[in-house]
């Protein structure tokens, strides 16, 4: 059994990877995004990724604010567009490890078109979509993943639209790697992110996170620990055989690695693109060559 090895964080101190001068962070008490951030940092630690070579591209929303706390090359771009920016950055600088952090609104509503085409292209990068089922930053409006009948500030009678299954979408659009995990299981989430980072191609990871202060309160979903523990009821790992009790989440979700293909990475057909376009500083970018 290697259970202990995979949950112990030996040698890992998340503070080594964060810009502590920006603390205290701005996330609400009980927000799940901090756990997702910890899992990502832990995964990078385990892989020995150089923070100098790490480029994190974030969109707008609560998830988008995480980038600023990571002590790496961080880019906080426009709403819904982090995958577009990351595509340019990854093509120009294949030497960088490109990670995108986005949210359910950022990635599936305003950025939905960019997501399907990023999956289709299969350019090497890892996209973490933190799904808290709500637009938290703007005060709690309905999002493309809000479960049906849930209350938000823009669904005062309850949401009447079905939610999005982002992982099915990513798989159908051709993403090389698709996985899902909840913040309940940070070590498992970390392992999933390691696999996603290791995959050569476009990796999509949906992280089930919780908005306790706004969404949880509005829907009487309990306090933060209760919400996190309740994630378990919605999970459908293959090992559960879909035989658990009535799920807490109206939309039960499968976790783990959901799809993995050996489709060639985008640049395989673009040999010239494998080189680093950015000239070494010693030669300068102003050379005409």
């Amino acid at each position, binding site marked *: 059994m290697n259970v202990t090895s995979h949950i112990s964080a030996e040698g890992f101190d998340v503070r080594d990877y964060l810009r502590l001068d920006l603390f205290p962070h701005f996330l609400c008490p009980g927000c799940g995004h901090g756990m997702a951030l910890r899992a990502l940092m832990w995964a990078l630690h385990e892989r020995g990724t150089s923070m100098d070579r790490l480029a994190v591209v974030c969109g707008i929303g609560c998830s988008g604010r995480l*980038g600023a706390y990571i002590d790496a090359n961080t880019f906080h*771009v426009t709403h819904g567009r982090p995958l*577009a920016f990351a595509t340019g950055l990854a*093509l120009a600088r294949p030497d960088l490890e490109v990670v995108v952090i986005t949210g359910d609104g950022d990635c599936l509503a305003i950025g939905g078109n960019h997501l399907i*085409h990023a999956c289709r292209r299969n350019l090497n990068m890892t996209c973490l979509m933190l799904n808290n089922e709500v637009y938290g930053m703007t005060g709690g409006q309905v999002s493309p993943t809000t479960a049906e009948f849930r209350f938000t500030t823009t669904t005062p009678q309850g949401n009447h639209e079905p939610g999005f299954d982002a992982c099915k979408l990513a798989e159908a659009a051709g993403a090389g790697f698709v996985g899902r995990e909840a913040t309940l299981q940070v070590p498992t989430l970390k392992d999933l992110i390691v696999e996603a980072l290791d995959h050569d191609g476009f990796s999509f990871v949906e992280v089930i996170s919780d908005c306790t202060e706004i969404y949880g309160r509005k829907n009487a979903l309990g306090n933060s620990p209760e919400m996190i523990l309740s994630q378990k009821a919605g999970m459908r790992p293959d090992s559960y055989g879909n035989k658990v009790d009535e799920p807490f989440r109206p939309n039960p979700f499968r976790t783990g690695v959901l799809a993995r293909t050996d489709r060639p990475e985008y640049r395989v057909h673009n040999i*010239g693109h494998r080189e680093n376009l950015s000239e070494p500083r010693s030669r300068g970018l102003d*050379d*005409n060559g």
Partner: protein
Amino acid sequence: MAGTGTIRNVQGNHACALGAIAAGCRFFAGYPITPSSEVAERMARELPGVKGVFIQMEDEIASMGAVIGASLGGVKAMTATSGPGFSLMQENIGYAAQTETPCVIVNVMRGGPSTGMPTRPSQGDIMQARWGTHGDHPVIVLAPASVKEVYDEMIRAFGLAERLRVPVIVLFDEVIGHLLESVELAPPAPGALVGRKWAQGPGQSHRPGAAGDDMVPAMARPGDGYRAHTTGLTHDETGFPTQDPVAVDRFLRRLLGKIDHHRKSIESYETVAPDDAGIVVAAIGVTSRAARRAVKTARDEGIKAGLFRPITLWPFPTEPFLRAARRAKAVLVPEMNAGQMCLEIERICPDTVSVVSLGRIDGEPISPDEILAAIRKIGA
């Protein structure tokens, strides 16, 4: 820039691509749109040969995002589009202005608004090019009027974008884009490609450093150890967001002020007979070619007409214009829109000068005869 380039017969859109390659552009992201598609097609052909990257994105929003992403990575990057695509790009053009990310955006103007007339020429985006994205923001707009000038202005566009860390828009009409002319494709002059200032040396922190006397801060390149933060939120010189009124005011005044600070090196224009012109015709793009002919004919008839042609459209070359119009009793502004550049000229002209708009919005270029008739009417 003379004597060493090859002579070729090319259209404006191809000259645009070749100028970009000569300027060191190594990344193009775009989306097909008439009448600019030949720029993308030519870049798709040329870039692999110079180890550059061409990518066709899912829309113009993504194209602009990818261009900025590549530029943040340290590569000279551009896109090309027309009206509807230019509208979609405005969001991320604002991001480039706010984060001071060098990039070049080509807009081959077609008839608008909305889908408008895709295959007809227009100069209807003069104001959008300046004010298209929200908030006070710096931008430079260049307006070439020949195939040769498209090539040269692309080289200048990259030079300005990289040196001043500002988005540069190259604006020309469909006629110039599809015009075939024999041009000399000269390599850039020494100094034309003075590049981006990179943060270097010790003190590798989150802080790429404040701007010096030139009001342009050095950029932190990913991988160089600075681990900087770039954000579209209003930020201070550390790169991190702030709402401190003093820091915000200082940041935005520098952002806007750097254009004015470098105005002399940005401005470019052409004049015909400025010393005695009683009637000055101000025009850009293909309209300026008709205006040149009209001015010549008018002078043959004894009317003291002159031409002022901004090559740098924004910032508008105010002082050079006022010098060229110092003896003018009237300024005639022919343009393929309902009167956009005319607004700027009215703004800067003294009350004693009569500013006459000659706007055409039917998708047809303005002919020399139309301009000549207007000159005669004013002169009479």
